[in-house]
């Protein structure tokens, strides 16, 4: 899928980046699950970079308390559906790409359908239960999953694609006993969302898994990054089971 002269001008500065593959990005299809603090940010950078197709899924409407961190929305948007607004704003930023907005809640029933046909899942959710649903769909469909989450001064992310890596359920299988509304602020959401987008772009252009089995933790209160290694859990209820034949690469 060649890029046009107009696209060559739009992407001029990134085309100068060593190893950049704009044509491969143009062919790529990504599900961004959640269009809040993390998803809004990562989707913005994926759109600006020229990822050819984005599917943005979010069931929420914009609330005043979202505006400390969710850069796609403004005060007049309060009460309006996020997925539609996000698609509109992202398309305005880059009309060269295709964007589908899905205003729906991610569930065990629809997760597979939402992720189907995508090359990558980027996590923009705000709860661990939803992330486990996403993780399961990622495993079932063999679509890599870039996890990200924030809380107070802590942010963390990782890349999951069993059997090449562990999965989220290997690491955190159950309920985290987290409050429904966690303390979060915009700059940290931007750091983690941006790192997720960077990881996504690298993977989409090279097919290489960045930092397999590593949880990257950012401690914003001390400005420290830590890498923590982990392994697949043999008894994992998601990826520890035998895979259906023919579904794994």
């Amino acid at each position: 899928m060649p890029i046009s002269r107009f696209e060559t001008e739009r992407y001029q500065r990134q085309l100068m980046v060593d190893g950049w593959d704009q044509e491969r990005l143009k062919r790529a299809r990504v599900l961004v699950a959640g269009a809040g603090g993390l998803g809004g940010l990562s989707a913005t950078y994926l759109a600006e970079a020229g990822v050819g197709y984005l599917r943005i899924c979010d069931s929420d409407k914009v609330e005043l308390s979202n505006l400390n961190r969710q850069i796609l929305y403004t005060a007049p948007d309060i009460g309006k559906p996020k997925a539609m607004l996000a698609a509109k704003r992202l398309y305005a930023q880059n009309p060269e790409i295709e964007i589908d907005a899905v205003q729906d809640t991610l569930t065990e029933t629809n997760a597979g359908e939402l992720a189907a046909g995508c090359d990558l899942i980027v996590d923009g959710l705000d709860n661990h239960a939803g992330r486990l649903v996403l993780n399961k769909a990622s495993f079932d469909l063999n679509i890599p999953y870039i996890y990200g989450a924030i809380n107070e001064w802590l942010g963390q992310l990782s890349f999951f694609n069993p059997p090449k890596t562990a999965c989220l359920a290997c690491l955190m299988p159950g309920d985290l006993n987290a409050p429904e509304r966690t303390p979060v602020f915009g700059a940290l959401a931007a750091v983690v969302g941006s790192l997720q987008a960077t990881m996504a772009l690298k993977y989409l252009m090279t097919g290489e898994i960045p930092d397999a089995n590593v949880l990257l933790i950012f401690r914003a209160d001390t400005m420290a990054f830590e890498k923590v290694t982990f392994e697949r859990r043999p008894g994992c209820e998601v990826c520890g089971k035998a895979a259906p034949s023919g579904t794994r690469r």
Partner: protein
Amino acid sequence: MTVFLKAGGNLRAMIKPDVDHYTRKLEIEGGKSIGEILEHISLNPAYVALMYVDGAMKDLSYKPADGETITLQPPVSGG
């Protein structure tokens, strides 16, 4: 032997830091697991999402060596 517990988020106050803002020093008998250490300080492990030592993920059965720092990660679930 001496071990250090380090925590951020809502776990930080639960470990009662005494070395710095995030760290508590503990004198314990050798051979104790992380689970036993948490029990020793009356910290319910259900509040701990992850734990790691020297850049490697561990579980409650891990028995730290003298001088090691166990980092306890609270639930990180927002977005």
